[in-house]
Structure formats: structure tokens, C-alpha cells
């Protein structure tokens, strides 16, 4: 019994120093020395690798040679064999604890930018990801003809704030000539030239200067961003014959359009978001001639009497409500939080 008590006390005495390694170091206390390689690496720019070494690596005796260090490392297991990227410790005991993190050696040797970013570990990173954006569009500034329609956008983010992409909206079956036009024509005998759209397609740059988050009832947090978009493309439109509908028919015209807009994207998770966007498509429209040729033969011949009269610069302001799906769905952050 006495012998058993002796051995238990001896074992406890041997374990005490090892337990003390996990305690925080007091200010001014010197850190235990690490094994020095034959060619010492450049001094670490931050304290992160040093701290990792303190925790994860066994502390060999001061002044041990590189061969001794290699031997000691080799004795700890395969994770540190040869390469020197890993120095053992918790990564050997439980490899899952180190999954997804770079080897300690690589972390130690790399260049670290000393900048501290105002926003770190942004909830939804965009760089290198594709964004699929189906939406429904409707017009905001045409009180005569509604131009709703489905659309689809595809963006690729070159950086977290800059993307290139394309988008297109299909309007043709959804144009609505409102009853207001008929009532106005009947009452005033004044016909307003009307136009309908077939489709619009543009190539865009997207810039994301605004990033933020909302808390809902101080419980749930939604992340969002605000972006501006601009580009160039083609808008296909044609006049709806209302001045002389018995004789005139119009084909679709392809008009070069400039586009500019701004949008809001609210993230539901890291790859799915709800979007609202305001777009202005600026183009030169072809408008039906409000005058009619005096003779029937001239009325039927567009070369004898122009069916198209004015070509005004037109703003087609559209609101687009949709969703965004980012691919790939996930990523690894480059720096720890």
C-alpha cells in the first residue's frame, strides 16, 4: 500500500511540469527555446507562427542541433517526416483538429501583410465565384406600355468588389398596352406613339462599394451589399402601330443601349441571396410617325412616306427583383479570424 502511494506521488510529480506548459505565460517570462534549424528562417513577421509552435510542438532542449531536431521530429510520427512543414503536437494526436489549415511551416515562412482590414472574414466572399441571377423585371417609367419579363444574369467576380458579367431580359410576350392609351385616344383624338420590347442583353461591370449587415429583432443577422452596375448591349424594340394600324407594320430593331444601375443584395446564407436592382437602359428609340400620308397608296408604302419619324434618346428604367446563387457554394478563409 505504501509502495502504491509512493508510485502515485512520483507519477503526479512527473506530470506537473507538463501540465504547467498549458498555462498562460506571465509577462516578462522567457519562452522556452525552439529547435534551431541549420539555416535559420527569417524572423516571423507576426506572433502567430511562434504561438503555434509553442502550443503544437514539443519543446526540445535548448541548443539542440538540427539533426537532433530532425530526429526528435521523426520520433513523433509521420506528419513531420522530412519536409519540416509540420512540427508535430496536436496535429499528430488529432489530425482532424488541423484539417483545412495550412501546415505550420508554410504559415511561418510566408509573407504576411501587416494590414488590418476594416471588415475581416466577410460573410459571403465573392472573389473567384460565379453568380447566377434569375429575376423578374418590370418598367418604372413607361406609363403607356408595361414591359415586364423574366431575365437572367451571370457574373464572375474578379475580386470581392468587381465582377464582369452578362444579363438578358425577355419582354416580347409580356408587353401590355394599357387601357389608359385607348381612353386617351378616344377622348382627345391624340395618339401617343407606343413601343414594345422583344429583349435586351448587356455585358456589364459590377462594383460593390457597400457592405453591411442587419440584425432582425437583434436576433438574426442578415448580410447585404449594395452595388452599382454599368455596361453596354443591345435592346430590340419596335413601334406598336397606333397611328395607322391598318397599313403599318414594324419589324424588330436592334438598338445599342448603355445601361447603368444600382442594386441591393441580401444574403440568406453564404451562397443564396435575394436581389433588387434598378436599371436604366439608355438607347435611341424609333417612334412611329404621327402623320399619315394623304393617299392610300402612299400610306401602304413606307418608302413613299416614312412610317418612322422621331428617334429620341429614351430611358427605359426597369426594376428587377430576383435571387442570386453563388458557385462554388463555399470557400476557406485565407486568414484566421
Amino acid at each position, binding site marked *: 500500500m505504501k509502495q502504491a502511494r509512493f508510485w502515485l506521488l512520483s507519477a503526479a510529480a512527473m506530470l506537473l511540469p507538463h501540465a504547467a506548459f498549458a498555462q498562460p505565460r506571465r509577462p516578462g517570462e522567457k519562452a522556452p527555446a525552439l529547435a534551431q534549424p541549420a539555416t535559420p528562417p527569417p524572423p516571423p513577421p507576426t506572433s502567430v507562427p511562434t504561438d503555434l509552435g509553442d502550443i503544437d510542438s514539443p519543446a526540445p532542449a535548448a541548443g539542440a542541433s538540427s539533426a537532433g531536431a530532425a530526429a526528435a521530429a521523426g520520433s513523433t510520427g509521420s506528419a513531420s517526416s522530412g519536409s519540416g512543414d509540420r512540427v508535430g503536437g496536436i496535429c499528430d494526436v488529432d489530425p482532424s483538429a488541423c484539417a*483545412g489549415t495550412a501546415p505550420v511551416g508554410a504559415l511561418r515562412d510566408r509573407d504576411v501583410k501587416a494590414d488590418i*482590414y*476594416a*471588415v475581416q472574414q466577410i460573410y459571403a466572399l465573392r472573389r473567384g465565384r460565379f453568380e*447566377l441571377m*434569375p429575376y423578374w423585371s418590370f418598367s*418604372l*417609367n413607361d*406609363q403607356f406600355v408595361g414591359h415586364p419579363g423574366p431575365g*437572367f444574369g451571370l457574373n464572375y467576380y474578379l475580386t470581392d468588389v468587381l465582377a464582369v458579367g452578362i444579363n438578358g431580359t*425577355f419582354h*416580347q*410576350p409580356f408587353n401590355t398596352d394599357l387601357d*389608359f392609351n385607348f*381612353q*386617351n385616344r*378616344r*377622348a*382627345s*383624338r*391624340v395618339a*401617343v406613339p407606343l413601343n414594345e420590347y422583344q429583349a435586351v442583353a448587356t455585358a456589364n461591370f459590377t462594383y460593390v*462599394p*457597400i*457592405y*453591411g*449587415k*442587419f*440584425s*432582425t*429583432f*437583434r*436576433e*438574426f*443577422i*442578415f448580410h*447585404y451589399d*449594395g452595388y452599382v452596375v454599368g455596361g453596354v448591349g443591345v435592346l430590340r424594340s419596335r413601334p406598336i402601330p397606333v397611328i395607322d394600324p391598318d397599313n403599318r407594320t414594324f419589324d424588330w430593331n436592334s438598338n445599342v443601349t448603355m445601361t447603368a444601375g444600382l442594386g441591393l443584395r441580401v444574403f440568406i446564407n*453564404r451562397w443564396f441571396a435575394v436581389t433588387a436592382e434598378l436599371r436604366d437602359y439608355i438607347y435611341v428609340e424609333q417612334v412611329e410617325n*404621327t402623320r399619315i400620308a394623304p393617299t392610300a397608296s402612299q400610306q401602304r408604302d413606307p418608302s413613299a412616306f416614312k412610317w418612322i419619324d422621331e428617334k429620341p434618346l429614351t430611358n427605359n428604367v426597369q426594376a428587377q427583383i430576383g435571387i442570386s*446563387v453563388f*458557385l*462554388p*457554394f*463555399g*470557400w*476557406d*478563409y485565407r486568414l484566421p*479570424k
Partner: protein
Amino acid sequence: MKQHFSFRETTMKRIAFAAATALGVSIAFAAKPRSAAAQEIQLTGPLAGAPSVRNLRLHREGRVELAIGPGFTLLDEYQRTIFASGRLNYNLTDWLGIGVFGGYGAASLNTDLTDRIDVTAPRNSRTATNIPPANGPSFASQTGKLKFMAAPQVIFSPFRGKLALFQKLFVDTDLYLHGGAAFVGVDERKDCTACTDASAFDTQTRIAIAPTFGLGLTLYTRGLLSVNLEYRAFPLLGGWNRSGYDTRGAGPDGSFPDNQVNEDDRTGKFNQMVFIGLGFSLPASPTVSP
């Protein structure tokens, strides 16, 4: 016609093919094993169960807010209205407030259609009821205008947060919804039975009641001031005669002109406007949550 049908059919097939392709790609990406998964941070230890936000500046709770600025109507047919408008709120909590929005129609601007009608509409027996005579008032004088608005309302602001502009400038924000009843002063052509007289194109003002709702975004400074962008819809479901035309009242379903201007000629309109305001809140400093 056949060609048109085949074009539409082809187009629909293309849309269906594109949709199926997009769906297939999405499923393929979703089914692929994720080599890079987002790092969800599971809170344990002393932070478990802690509130998601601490030391939140309560810009609304217990504060009175006065916001003033212009309001612009959208999608107008004959007259655009610029309101000199303001809003007075008292916020019972940080997410619920009561208040009133008001505006005075400071300017009514003709749309291009109004000017075009005034210049080009023929003056004859067919238009005598609807267009003033050549030596009479302008067409714009008979068109409907919004003169004022008063809207008691409830403000619900469940979304509270902040935004970073260029990762440099940080601003507290909230996104809110509002709803209430709007009392709208509508100036429209007065009722008439002998509607071709020059005096029959005068207008009269009445008060119409409409539901009003919308949403807005507030950007707060640390203290007194805030900037507000708000969308407001106030559909006049009972209708108003925006053109001053006689368009209804006769025929089996009342959809033909009856040579009289009265309430039959009113049509519903989904009125909308945008308000941009500069806000002042009292007390000048917000409280801070625990």
C-alpha cells in the same frame, strides 16, 4: 400568323432548354462533394447563448424624429407632383413607432403627353367635352393634381444594422416598413352636365382616402441627424379623374362617354412616390443597449 406561332414555339423550347440546363448545372454543383466548405463558427463556452448584438445604439427607442425633404411622384400620366413633405415619428420601441407623414403639392409639372395634347388635339365637336376650346384655358388646367397629403401611420423597423462604404466609412442603418391611411387632397375637374362651356373645365378639390404603405432606409449619424430614403404607395382605389375627360357613364356597362363629367369618370390608380428626407432626432444622443 403561322410563322409567328412557330417563332413563339421555338422560343419557348429554347427557354425550356435553357431552364433545364441551368437546373441541371445547379443540381450538379449541389451534388458535388464540397472540398471547400464555409466555416460556420459554433459558439461555445462563455459566449453560448449571448445576444447577437451588444452595445447597440438605439437610434429609435424613445426618440422623436422629424424628417423634412422633397417627395416625387412616379409614373404620372398627366401631372407630376413635387411635394414639400415631412414626417414626424415617435418611436415607442426600437422597432415600433407611430407618426404622421404630410406633404404639400408645391409644384405640378406637365408631362410630355399633357403638352402634346394641348398643342395637337383637334378642337371640334368630338373633343368639345374633353378638350378646352382654342380660346379657353389650357388642357393642363383641367388635369388632376395632388394638392396635399396627410398620412397617420405605424412604422415597423425590424432590420437594424450598419453598412461599410468602400470599407472606410461606417454608417448605422435601419430598414423599415410603414403603413397607414392617407388623406389626399385631389384637385380634379369639377362635375358638369353642360361640359363644353369654358367654365366647365375648372377644377375642384376633394379629400380622397387611400391606404398607404411602403418601406424606407435610414442612415444615422452618431447623434442628431439622419438621412432617409423612402418609397410610398398610396393607391387611390376609389379612383380620380386625372385627365378631366368624360370616358364613362353610358352604355350597357357604363364604359362609354355620356357627355357628363362626374364620379363615373374616375379610375383607380396605383399612386407612388419617393421621399428623400433629412431627419432630426430628439434626444440628440441615442441610448445604448446592454
